[in-house]
């Protein structure tokens, strides 16, 4: 009988899985279910060009509609999966339908972490995760308006950069003592702190938001014991993996759906998971959950390979990027506290990189407007190469010849 693969989640990972399954010759039925009304689209531009208004919605979509027709992939959109019956191998949808599967891929992604402080439900408090969120935010983005950004991470800072360029009056509230503390090292945080201040963004570090105040909508943010007037608030304090479906089905979940190097759930050889929703043993042997396009693409590819009987362990080097102003931040590898940090180039020139060495081996690189450092760094990390701090810091040696 014809094999049936069901993919729950119509995002970057889901779309990649369809492409790889067909490229690898899978000739069974593929059905992809997504709870948003859209076919898979790119999320990274949402907080950048799409918010700015320089990229139309049509350009966000990862594949044209004809792709799904050609791939003979049934798309069920605007419908959520509510239950997995692993014994009966079916997925129940909230429109009453039930889909039978031989293999199931959970590509359920993640959702925003919400604030729970007083006033959190006031109109005017925004989040940013999907097209609808940005459409709502764009409607209220007007020059002169006061925007309070809660959280100095990627999302908050990308929005701050767009907003200040659009003429809004922007204040960022960050609970920790530096920006993007979860994603970058102190020298890079310090550089971005200065870049945002120079662009006219007010940054309040070590400042926790205690609540939102206003009669019918948000009018002020209470933070650090003070009231800060605001017309709009944007909260970007991280995401949570969508793993409830897996958990309810008795699959092992920690902070994410636990999968092995073939993106398979260890308890059930018919169930795979890929992307933001998963937790896997990273290439350094430590359990991690990655929130990035690279992981969605690569893990989905490995899941698809395993599903068609061509398993290949997932060991790719993670990579990330962020665009703020004219600054392109590109990161490869995962830094850890205790790494020796070597800065190459001059942050003042808005072009530099921070390399992370662990026992002399290149473990991560954070590059700002420094593509060679990023690209060579990524290769060095994959190869487990050792480079001395002296060589890495010496800009007279081109990256190409660094080893």
């Amino acid at each position, binding site marked *: 009988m014809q094999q049936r693969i069901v993919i729950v989640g119509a995002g970057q990972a889901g779309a990649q899985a369809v492409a790889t399954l067909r490229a690898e010759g899978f000739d069974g039925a593929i059905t992809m279910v997504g709870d948003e009304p859209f076919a898979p689209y790119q999320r990274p531009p949402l907080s950048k060009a799409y918010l700015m208004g320089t990229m139309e919605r049509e350009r966000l979509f990862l594949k044209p509609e004809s792709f799904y027709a050609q791939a003979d992939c049934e798309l069920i959109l605007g419908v959520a999966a509510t239950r997995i019956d692993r014994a009966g191998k079916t997925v129940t949808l909230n429109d009453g339908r039930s889909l039978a599967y031989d293999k199931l891929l959970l590509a359920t992604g993640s959702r925003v972490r919400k604030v729970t402080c007083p006033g959190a439900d006031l109109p005017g408090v925004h989040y940013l995760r999907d097209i609808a969120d940005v459409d709502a935010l764009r409607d209220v983005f007007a020059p002169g308006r006061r925007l309070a950004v809660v959280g100095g991470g990627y999302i908050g800072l990308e929005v701050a950069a767009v907003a200040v360029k659009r003429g809004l009056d922007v204040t960022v509230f960050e609970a920790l003592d530096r920006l993007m503390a979860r994603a970058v090292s102190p020298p890079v945080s310090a550089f971005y702190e200065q870049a945002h201040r120079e662009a006219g963004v007010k940054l309040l570090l070590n400042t926790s938001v205690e609540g939102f105040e206003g009669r019918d909508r948000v009018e002020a943010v209470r933070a650090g014991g003070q009231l800060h007037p605001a017309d709009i608030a944007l909260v970007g304090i991280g995401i949570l993996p969508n793993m409830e479906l897996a958990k309810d089905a008795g699959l092992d979940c920690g902070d994410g759906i636990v999968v092995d190097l073939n993106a398979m759930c260890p308890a059930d050889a018919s169930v795979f998971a890929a992307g933001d929703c998963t937790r896997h043993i990273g290439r350094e042997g430590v359990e991690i959950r990655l929130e990035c396009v*690279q992981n969605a693409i690569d893990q989905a590819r490995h899941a698809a390979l395993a599903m068609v009987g061509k398993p290949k362990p997932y060991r790719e080097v993670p990579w990330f990027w962020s665009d703020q102003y004219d600054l392109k931040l*590109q990161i490869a590898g995962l830094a850890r506290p205790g790494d020796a940090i070597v800065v190459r180039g001059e942050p003042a020139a808005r072009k530099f990189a921070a390399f992370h060495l662990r026992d002399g081996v290149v473990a991560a690189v954070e590059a700002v407007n420094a*593509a060679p450092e990023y690209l060579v760094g990524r290769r060095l990390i994959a190869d487990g190469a050792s480079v001395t701090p002296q060589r890495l810091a010496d800009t007279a040696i081109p990256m190409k010849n660094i080893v």
Partner: protein
Amino acid sequence: MPKIKYVEHNGKEHEVEVPAGWSVMEGAVKNLIPGIDADCGGACACATCHVYVDAAWIGKLPPKADMEETMLDFAQDLEPTSRLSCQIKVTPELDGLVVRTPKSQH
């Protein structure tokens, strides 16, 4: 709408219309032309949308920005007319542009 011709490594040709303002990479991806991965979606972050621009056209393109230049430096099988297709913006003047895709993007 400007027409762009994409030629696969194996010689297979695809002539498609691409809206002005889009990138040459988007034109390929949205028309399911094989050979351009564009993992990062056009952010000039991954160097997986490398193309060879037809010699007759290379002089008609705006020059490379620094970022593209350095990213390209690390692409496989570089040729003098290599470009990152996510950085080539389609304009009415580029009607008829011909690009070839490389053997591999990785």
